[in-house]
């Protein structure tokens, strides 16, 4: 089962062509999921990452079936 990739808010609008699935063979970490999904080299420093609904850092390992999300700074409340 591939890694599911989600983008939210302004990032979703800025990256309309980003892939929503990445094979685990293409990416071992959150950072590598970003590269594979967006074809962009660096994750902007302000971008927030999560794996399976939990905040994580870009070097967090990922595996088949994980849900990885990228989003801009949170502005709720």
């Amino acid at each position, binding site marked *: 089962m591939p890694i599911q990739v989600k983008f*939210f*808010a*302004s990032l979703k609008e800025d990256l309309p062509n980003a892939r929503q699935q990445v094979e685990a063979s293409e990416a071992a970490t959150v950072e590598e999921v970003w590269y594979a999904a967006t074809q962009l080299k660096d994750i902007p420093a302000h971008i927030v990452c*999560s794996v399976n*609904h939990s905040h994580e850092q870009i070097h967090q390992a990922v595996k088949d079936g994980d849900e990885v999300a990228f989003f801009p*700074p*949170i*502005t*709720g*409340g």
Partner: protein
Amino acid sequence: MPVEVVTGAFDPAAKQQAFEATLTPGTFGATANFIGTMRTVNEGDDVVGMYLEHYPGMTETELQKIIADAAQQWRIIDALIVHRVGELEPGEPIVLTTVWSKHRKDAFEAVRYLMEALKSRAPFWKKETLANGDTRWVEKNTPGY
């Protein structure tokens, strides 16, 4: 200690009272609320509408974690978080956080913690519609302290 993400307008007082009715009367001596409401001006511009996006699943999970963290730090009897998503109009409530405790110190401090943690950890994003018709994503929160 429930969390609710709601798509329609809500009445914070009614939400607080409805949940409070499930608690045992006399067990709590303090109830502290925070209500966040949509303003008509942000960063000097007139704002006429707002769209609130969230991350279904993660948002609710993170709100529960925030309440659990508060319960580790203060003696709280119960807590409630209600947060709006979707389209909002000025003057409508965005968020309600309520804490019930025996004494005011725990209620005041825990409800403050819930709001500050929510604003940095729970995935919600605001998109404003300005009076001239432009839209823009809010890029950062105002400092709470």
